[in-house]
């Protein structure tokens, strides 16, 4: 299916530019993209996608006409999904007054059946603005990017020990002086606990950890 070496497409266009399929020459979308400062590189061998963006994103544009006409775009999207490989595949769906009634069905097919990402656009102008944001966004920090949590665990351990009935902050701290981990505390026998928190609470702690909670 692919007429170009997949590796070349996988590498994607340089930063700030987009590979655009030939059929988009002189389209409003391409003109708007240029206007938004995106560099256009036309390519007649893009395969199934309409656009390739930097950082492994490719896009298929499903027009109002495609949606209203029905089945053809579905076959194309299935092939698109199967050829995708390591790229993130987006589907822009032109949602207008005319095509709106079909949107729920299109979404079900694209997102739930095929597992692709769908972004509705009202027109080619909308699409150009969105593509420009994705291209320009590559240079900026993504606020939603997953941050590796390097939280301090000690306060979390303290909070967890205080979940044990009868144990407040003072007793929790005293227990953690003797048993440094939660597991050690859990495996301590009642006599060991008694020396720190007294008979009653020691029994409470022991039974809290060992009493059945579920069928196992």
């Amino acid at each position, binding site marked *: 299916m692919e007429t170009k070496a997949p590796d070349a497409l996988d590498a994607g266009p340089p930063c700030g530019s987009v590979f655009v399929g030939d059929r988009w020459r002189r389209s409003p979308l391409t003109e708007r993209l240029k206007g938004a400062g995106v560099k256009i590189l036309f390519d007649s061998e893009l395969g199934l996608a309409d656009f390739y963006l930097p950082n492994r994103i490719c896009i298929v544009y499903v027009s109002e006409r495609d949606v209203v006409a029905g089945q053809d775009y579905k076959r194309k999207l299935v092939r698109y999904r199967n050829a995708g490989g390591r790229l993130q595949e987006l589907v822009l769906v032109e949602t207008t007054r005319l095509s709106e009634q079909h949107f729920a069905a299109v979404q079900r097919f694209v997102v739930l059946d095929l597992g692709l*990402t769908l972004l*509705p656009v009202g027109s080619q102008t909308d699409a150009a603005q969105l593509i420009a944001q994705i291209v320009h966004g590559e240079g900026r920090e993504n606020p939603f990017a997953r941050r590796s949590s390097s939280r301090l665990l000690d306060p*979390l351990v*303290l909070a967890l020990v205080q979940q044990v009935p009868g144990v407040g902050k003072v007793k929790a701290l005293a227990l953690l002086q003797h048993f*440094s981990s939660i*597991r050690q505390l859990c495996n301590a026998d009642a006599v060991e606990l008694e020396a720190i928190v007294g008979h009653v609470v020691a029994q409470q702690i022991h039974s809290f*950890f060992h009493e059945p909670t579920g069928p*196992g």
Partner: protein
Amino acid sequence: VKQDVSGSESPASVCILVDSRCISSGVELMTVLRQRHAATIHVCSLDGSYFIVSNRMAVERHSQSDLAVMQNRKRLVERVNSLQGLFDRICLIVEKDRTKPGEASRPFQRTRFFDSTLAGLVRTGIRLLWSSGAEESAGLLADLARLEQRKGQGIAVPLEVKGQHGQQALQMYLSLPSVSYAHALNLSHNFKSIAHLMNSSIEAIQKGGCMSRSRAEEIYHFLRYSCDPFLVNTSKGRKTS
């Protein structure tokens, strides 16, 4: 609120956990979920107003204008980041803004800021679904839950735990790092006692919690983490209750 969860599950029935804060804003949605989609719903207290549709997926509803207004960005980022810690998959249902009865619906003004928000979300792997209102959102939630169930990720344990001790254990599991309400329910039902979990292998935690390997590893190491009494002592001012 309660529905019968003791009966054997019919294949079409899906389980959805709902934060109590979703009720006031989602009466219509909940009604449709129960009546038309025969979903088993359990209202509980989550750390934000979202839905849990499987062992690994959370779903939040946002209005289009939520994503389009700069003032909301910080809150949205915080919400997404906190969900990322608890769930492997996150889905946002973006709903058209509601119009008051008699008011003409205004076309949504698509801003550059809205598009940059979408770009950021998509690049992070957040799933997006688009909805025209509460009724459609209910259908999407049911569809997601069903899809997850087909993939073997549906919540298969009862949505409630019985007895005071069961409740206390559930609360303790919820205070483990990176453990969602769904994981905590699984741990509650799949381990005999808290001590049983504490002394289990990574593999057993992964299986019993219905969670990813990395999450199970995190729990395993947390339970064995050796506290520094000095650090514990100086951590005043943090919320511990």
